[in-house]
């Protein structure tokens, strides 16, 4: 096994700066174990775990070392091949916030209707608000469970990536009711699939239709909000070569694209619905191409155009490279990823495969080059510490204090993932404090024994024994009870 890891190290060294490798060598081919740095292979495993997962859990490093890095990455790219632990699966399927449709969730929680002039029943309204909040809490709990426990980590990471790409803010109207449904039904099934399918599923989900107001967009009452963000944020990118006329035109294409209004005689309220009565059937010109007035099909045509546009390929390639490689991603890599995207008709799995085989991904410059976002940092601390019970309140409070509450990004552009966005004096104080709380086993747990203090030796093993010399030195000089905290609060661990 060791030989396998070291051979990967060698490959990585050889391809530095070289163009993308067409195919990695087959797993069975033994390679001579020649490398200057005996820890190179270990670092590569940690690098992969840092980028493809929310951080190594105890046992992950050994598992990857024994199955081989390439097999691990390949499995992560095909999450359906990784069995879910039955208990986790059972728990996740128990969350109605994830399993019910947007309409079903509304029917379950909506306050009873009041006739005109009739006072709403305050007790019923209170119950409704409470149920809505419970649904939101379920969504947060499920997301944490998935991110902390799921062996399909790359899928979880990509759900986070795409959620941010198609960001929703929880506190706009009933959006908080549908976040779980949005994530589970519109994003997760396509997180590693074809971008066009993802775009279509998102475009039909009432959470998006509500958040960006397209349900109000009608012939004679144009609302451009979704049309604009669809091009600026979801597909072409802000410099993607569209004009205000294109925004207006797309808004006209999108007229009538919404959901059924909820109501007493409307059992399928808040489910996707195209209302041709509200649609503008005039012919349109979008990005220089004709879209004949045809109703619902116009939207499909427009989404096809947008998904296949070279600007979209570049925009998505840049964002993926920034997320997985470096804040300022190498241009050559972005170009190759964009080309792969266009060559495969927007196959996300293929683009990621190219990315994970690229020299840029494995280069020394990329190693620990990304400053973790608050969410990534907190999850990685919990994972490395081997915490299993989900302390939802603690997580929510800390993410809020660190400026990245779950589902709490106000603007449709989603949270950034760059060091510039997250590194601040206050952030450092809070991160270090969080490392101390968890490292010393002081997580506040309601009515239960919290997790024990983290053993520094075991933590070093979890992290592949590749701490930087400065940190090694500081840890051995520190009091025993602070050693794990120091590792978790170190510059090494703040980066991925």
């Amino acid at each position, binding site marked *: 096994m060791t030989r396998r890891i070291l051979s990967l190290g060698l490959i990585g060294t050889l391809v530095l700066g070289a163009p993308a490798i067409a195919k990695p060598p087959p797993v069975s081919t033994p390679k001579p174990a020649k490398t200057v740095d005996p820890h190179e292979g270990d670092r590569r495993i940690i690098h992969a775990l840092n980028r493809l997962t929310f951080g190594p859990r105890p046992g992950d490093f050994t598992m990857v070392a024994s199955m081989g890095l390439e097999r691990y990455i390949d499995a992560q790219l095909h999450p359906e091949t990784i069995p879910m632990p039955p208990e986790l699966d059972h728990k996740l399927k128990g969350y109605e916030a994830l399993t019910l449709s947007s309409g079903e969730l509304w029917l379950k929680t909506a306050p009873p209707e009041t006739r005109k002039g009739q006072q709403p029943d305050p007790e019923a309204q209170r119950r409704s608000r409470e149920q809505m909040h419970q649904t939101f809490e379920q969504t947060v709990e499920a997301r944490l469970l998935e991110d902390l426990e799921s062996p399909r980590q790359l899928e979880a990471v990509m759900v986070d990536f795409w959620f941010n790409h198609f960001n929703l803010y929880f506190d706009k109207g009933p959006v908080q009711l549908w976040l779980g449904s949005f994530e589970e039904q519109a994003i997760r099934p396509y997180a590693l699939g074809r971008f066009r399918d993802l775009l279509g599923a998102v475009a039909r989900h009432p959470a998006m239709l509500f958040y960006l107001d397209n349900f109000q967009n009608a012939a004679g009452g144009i609302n451009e909000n979704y049309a604009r963000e669809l091009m600026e944020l979801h597909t072409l990118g802000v410099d993607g070569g569209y004009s205000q006329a294109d925004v207006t035109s797309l808004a006209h294409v999108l007229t009538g694209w919404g959901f059924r209004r909820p109501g007493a005689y409307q059992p399928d309220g808040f489910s996707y619905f195209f209302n041709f009565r509200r649609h503008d059937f005039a012919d349109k010109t979008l990005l220089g191409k004709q879209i004949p007035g045809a109703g619902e099909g116009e939207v499909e045509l427009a989404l096809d155009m947008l998904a296949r546009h070279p600007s979209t390929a570049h925009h998505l390639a840049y964002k993926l490279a920034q997320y997985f490689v470096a804040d300022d991603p190498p241009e050559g890599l972005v170009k190759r990823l964009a080309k792969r995207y266009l060559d495969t008709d927007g196959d996300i799995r293929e683009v990621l495969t190219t990315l994970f085989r690229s020299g840029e991904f494995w280069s020394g410059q990329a190693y620990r080059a990304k400053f973790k976002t608050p969410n990534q940092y907190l999850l990685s601390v919990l994972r490395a510490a081997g915490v299993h019970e989900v302390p939802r309140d603690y997580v929510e409070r800390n993410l809020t204090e660190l*400026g990245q509450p779950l589902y709490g990004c106000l603007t449709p552009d989603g949270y950034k993932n760059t060091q510039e966005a997250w590194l601040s004096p*206050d952030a450092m104080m809070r991160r*270090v404090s969080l490392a101390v709380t968890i490292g010393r086993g002081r997580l506040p747990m309601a009515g239960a024994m919290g997790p024990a203090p983290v053993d520094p030796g075991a933590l070093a093993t979890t992290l592949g024994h590749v701490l930087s010399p400065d940190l090694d030195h500081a840890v051995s000089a*520190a009091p025993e009870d602070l050693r794990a905290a120091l590792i978790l609060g170190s510059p090494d661990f703040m980066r991925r």
Partner: protein
Amino acid sequence: MNRRDFLRRSAAMTALGMLPLGLGGWVWGGGGPGHARTKRLIVVFLRGAVDGLSVVAPYTDPLYFAARPRIALPKPGTDGGLIDLDGRFGLHPALERLVPLWKSGSLAFVHACGSPDPTRSHFDAQDYMESGLPGRKGTVDGWMNRLLSVLPAPHGPTQAVSFGPTIPRILEGHMAVSNMALERNAAKLIPVDRPRIGRAFDALYSGRDALSVAYQQGQEARQTLLDDLDQVNEERQMADHGAPSPVGFGKDTDQLARMLALDPSIKLAFLALGGWDTHINQGAQLANHLRPLAEGLTGLVQGLGDAFADTTILVMSEFGRTFRENGDAGTDHGHGNVMWVLGGNVQGGKVYGTWPGLGDDQLYQKRDLAVTTDFRTVVGSVLTGHLGLMTPQLARVLPGMPPADSSLAGLIRPTKTS
């Protein structure tokens, strides 16, 4: 100054070009007399949209009473009635504590003020008011952070302070800022504040790389603010002789005032206060929120003492509320609002702005008080008149701001140059 690591703090400060000068007096090394003339801006944000038509009510217009049969405040001179301001507008009775400031000319209002953006969404409207770029989503920084970048150096991390658990949108950006969560009458301590833990991490973050610099600034800011707070509390215990401490918002403003009086390095401060979204039974709810706000503001002014002369306090809210009351004796999301301006060089005792009227055709979309003064022009007047910003600097803080119109003339008394 006996607390925590005096040596550590003073070493950190000297390293950043500052010298300690005895108890509580810190001046910028080589920066001239900082203490006496620190110009300050404090922003109090009322999140949830306060009903400006109840804060400063147009009681001489019969339409006001017609539109709000259950929630209009009684005319001045009646039981529980408004306090007359200028024969035309009346102040909410729960704000009685502010009357002396009005009479002494330190409190002004700008009515029918607000954002040019039509949104009635709390989050969009707050976002725009904090980014200072209405209608432009995705603006990365807040206007108070951009303001820091144009204020004179040196830029220490305690230069802008927010009291609350998080850094608010208005202070987000490139410039280092700090925040401090308060609980009871002290700072909420976090593990890194403990010297033993701080020392262990100091060793890890002693370099000049970005993470280390941020860490060191964070430590410096916390130590400074915690020391300030310690000192404030010691002094108060001696002064109060066991009198009850203020609670709620009053507690925050009290701490803030004392810290500002003590620490000239703090130039900008931010506080937010919620509970203004009065859709149902507005009357008592609003009064119960306005009263502590008035107490907090007067406490702040008193606590600042002489420093109030060099301070401006802006009280703002994302939008106003509907002109007509709704079916639940409340009001819904509206548009124009009133902005409050307090300060030593405010020419107060006057309601500024252009009153648009309350007739159907004068209302915004026939339902809300119209906006005749862009909130940015009020902020801009303070930034130029009070903080001395020049036009290019102002353009960096509030790009695209329209020119202030004559209705704001005289709001800020020109600073005498001596």
